């Protein structure tokens, strides 16, 4: 059986709009993915703990509060500390090009800016997950 892509969507920080992320969640589901939606005001530790328990391939976060330069690195740090550095982290927000470069250098796989079509993020996610290889032995 082909494995389903599992992706966790979260909204860290204090801004209280979840419309955008719900649209993305529905689009990912319609693309055949299993989407775990965690709701608003998630802290980086909550996001990473949930991602580990749900064994997701990727974490997608929406950050519209402008706090992307603190939240993304905080999530990455949490992932590394908890041995979850292999999970793909991507997100969306109003982020200038230079900062996108900076974030991608830190380990964020992709940052989408407002207006990017959902097909683009679906394509990105499929490719990124497809490239992920694991050589771990179960038994």
């Amino acid at each position, binding site marked *: 059986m082909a494995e389903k892509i599992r992706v966790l969507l979260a909204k860290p920080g204090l801004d209280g709009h979840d419309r955008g992320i719900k649209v993305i969640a529905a689009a990912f589901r319609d693309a055949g993915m*299993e989407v775990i939606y965690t709701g608003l005001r998630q802290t980086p530790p909550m996001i990473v703990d949930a991602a580990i328990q749900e064994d997701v391939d990727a974490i997608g976060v929406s950050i519209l509060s402008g706090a992307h330069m603190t939240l993304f690195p905080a999530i990455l740090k949490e992932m590394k500390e908890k041995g979850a550095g292999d999970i793909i982290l991507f997100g969306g927000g109003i982020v200038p090009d230079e900062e996108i470069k900076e974030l991608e250098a830190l380990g964020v796989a992709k940052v989408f800016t407002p207006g990017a079509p959902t097909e683009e993020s679906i394509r990105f996610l499929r490719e990124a997950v497809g490239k992920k290889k694991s050589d771990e032995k*179960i038994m």
Partner: protein
Amino acid sequence: MTVLEKFYQRDIRALSRIISFVENREEGYRQLLGELYRMVGHGLRIGITGPPGAGKSTLVNRLVHRFVADGKTVAVIAVDPTSPFSGGALLGDRVRMQEFPAAEQVYFRSMATRGATGGLAAATDNIAVVMEAFGYDVVLIETVGVGQVELDIIDACDTVVVTLVPESGDAVQAMKAGLMEISDVMVINKADRPGSENLIDELKSALHLQKRDPDAWQIPIIATEGINDKNIDLLYEKILEHDAFTRNNGRFDAHRREQIKKKIINILRNRFQREFLDTLAGQVSFEQIVDDIYYGRQNPFQVGEDLYDAFGRK
């Protein structure tokens, strides 16, 4: 180190990986389950079922905190439907889970039905085995909540909580749907809304009408307010009471034994079905057969007999 070795060292990532391994039926998953099955005792498995929006997740969240306060470790499985059109799923039960302690104490896993229709996913009871083997004292399972009655929960749990709301309709509907038969504890949630007392009265008299052994468990009906944390202590108490009651009178054992029997039959049925269909796939053209039936040259009943005679008798 293998993932299983890490699992034995109580590594949460390994637990999550193994749950996926079992859920995806990856090569070797049966052998792994067999290994873990030996470590499973008779921990408490609780099912929460009821229509969408009744407050199942809200109650799960409350109950988890009660168990934690009693020093228990809890694993939750929350099942949501897979879209039959896209194969995708939106799993949103996590939203209601608030202020959980670390995963060693409370572990939460969302599952999509992936085509199953009885209220759970095909792998749900196997995942419960994995969680118990990891060491969780209690496994709480929330069903999908879209079907009429979600019977799978009976075979996966020891104690079933059926959740209704004042808007759920009258007691006759609940009876017709067979909800009385599957409940060990009945909850009318959203008791802050009008109509709950009415429904409770109706349910009580409906329960009275049913012929019951006087020594049998008397199904309690509890009015709760999940959002206001009202009467949750009573619900918690009744769940524990039911557990103690069934463990004392042998019902718990009988039910578990029945579950084991069903499990074996299920495993055999799946095995036979898979093998038979694999054999057929190599040798029979379904297109041709469908043509024959569609144009009246054959009928499905005769075809069934013929195929069974030709390939099924071994």
